[in-house]
């Protein structure tokens, strides 16, 4: 595959915490592998494209999160996303986006049903969780860093695996883990954006999306940046 379609879902709603940069980092890293990536923005009134390779969701305020959920449940969108996952597409969902992918979450004081794609449920905690976070990822075998800023506490069900074990910060809230993984679906509370702070994760998502193993990229600035964040947090 030399063409890759990155679908950035509802950036105008899910773009409050800087996560839109994940799409840019993916496209940038893809270039090193000779892949031409296009970023396809889907806004609230649009339908999800069926042929995406990587679908991205970011963090949002409560009302924006509810609008995004409503749009994803509208017309054929949920079916499109499920079919894409079925054929191996990758999903990276951050914070509010992570909660949307789960079975249920709370927004504006009301519990709502999520998309049910990840086996997780979220509830509001007593205190907002804000600060730097570092985890060690069992999936990847290395450390991840980011910044978390959320009220929700997320609990994993039996079919979701934790994404990272928390070394610093809070993550999901009660289980000492951050995020959840199921197949090619990744959920996390890490902003930063997560792929800017952790370029190896971007490479892993590219590998998963294309089914090909790539040679390691040499981008000294990216490595220096990631290593520095891991050292200081």
């Amino acid at each position: 595959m030399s063409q890759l379609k990155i679908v950035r879902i509802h950036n105008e709603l899910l773009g409050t915490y800087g996560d839109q940069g994940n799409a840019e980092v993916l496209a940038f890293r893809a270039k090193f592998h000779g892949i031409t990536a296009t970023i396809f923005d889907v806004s609230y009134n649009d339908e999800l494209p069926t042929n995406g390779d990587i679908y991205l969701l970011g963090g949002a305020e409560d009302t924006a999160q509810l609008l995004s959920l409503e749009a994803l449940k509208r017309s054929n969108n949920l079916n499109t996303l499920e079919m894409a996952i079925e054929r191996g597409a990758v999903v990276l969902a951050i914070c509010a986006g992570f909660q949307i992918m789960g079975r249920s979450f709370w927004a504006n004081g009301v519990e709502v049903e999520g998309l049910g794609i990840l086996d997780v449920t979220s509830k509001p905690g007593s205190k907002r969780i804000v600060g730097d976070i570092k985890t060690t990822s069992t999936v990847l075998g290395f450390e991840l860093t980011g910044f978390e800023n959320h009220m929700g506490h997320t609990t994993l069900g039996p079919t979701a695996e934790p994404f990272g074990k928390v070394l610093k910060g809070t993550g999901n809230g009660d289980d000492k883990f951050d995020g959840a993984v199921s197949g090619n679906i990744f959920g996390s509370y890490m902003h930063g954006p997560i792929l800017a702070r952790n370029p190896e994760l971007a490479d892993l998502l590219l590998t998963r999306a294309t089914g090909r193993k790539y040679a390691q990229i040499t981008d000294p600035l990216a490595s220096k940046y990631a290593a520095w964040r891991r050292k200081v947090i």
Partner: protein
Amino acid sequence: MRLKLSILIAKFAALLSRKILRKSGETIAGWVLLKLSPRAISELSKGRTIICVSGTNGKTSTTKALAKIVSSLGSVTTSISGSNLDRGIAAALMAKSDFAVLEVDELHLANIIEEAKPKIVLLLNLTRDQLHRMHEVKRVADRWALSAKISPKTIFVGDIDDPFVNLVLSSASNSEKISFGGRRHLDAAVCPACGTYLKWVGNNYKCSCGLTNSGANIILQPGTAAYKNAAMANVAGKILGASESEIDERALERSVDKVKNGVKLKLRLTKNPASWSEALNSVSGSSVLLIVNSREVDGIDTSWLWDISFDQLTGKQIVVSGERALDIAYRLHVAGIEAEIATDFEAAISKFPTDSAVHVLAAYTAFYELVNS
């Protein structure tokens, strides 16, 4: 009586702070005063006209401009630059005056309105900033709107091209709604009044719930943020009876010219996506220094750097420094712009030829360090 004694002790504390710690003493004075007389802001506001200025960007400079406008009407006390929390406000109110023009932090505004009972609240704009502290833009807007609703004697003045400001003005009994012909807003995809997807046509919005920027009572020409803040200060001044005054817009840009080691610097304060975008639009010439820090007032998270378009910088010599130089360097790298990384300010300016004119976009803490150095 107790208040008078508290002020005396607070002034003594300020004196000690100045003499021993060589600090301005304002914050400590306000802190001591509020410890001794928790109702000091309310007490000291009585018998004079209070004007509050708040918003994400432009508070400090607009407060200064408005204080100058109001000074034609009587004696004025005003905030010490950037001292916009309750203790700074208490310190400003220790001086006797006919008017007090106060810069107020977004999260403190509701409390200050309740205590000081201002005649006018001027709201400039509301966009995302320091989300580690503000958490959500909507949360700040809701607090303001509630405060407006329960303050029927206060006149709320502001730019309703910003839907959040419009929500607040629409909740008030008395308001002066200003429009500059519309503008884009990065954080207002959702209607702050009803929570539906906000309908934007170009730079204007019109929600089915009725929230729209076409309902202004004052319509002014479009322009830069500095021009708008100056114009709004004049509207507030006019309500009080002051005549319109010419305002130096450069002073409202938070830009300062300096020369260091032969390099001419144009320093500009940048602290969030809105102020960065505004500042990037003003960059001319080919030499630019970007300084990013992440202390409390800068915002401890730097994710928002990814929400700014840096296209303006393509083809220029870019140097980055500050505590988060690597964050901005990598962000630019991904945008196809390569920057030189400097360990500190001295090293940064040495990368430019002598006699060159350098635009410096600096984080809050870096800006003040440079201005005061």
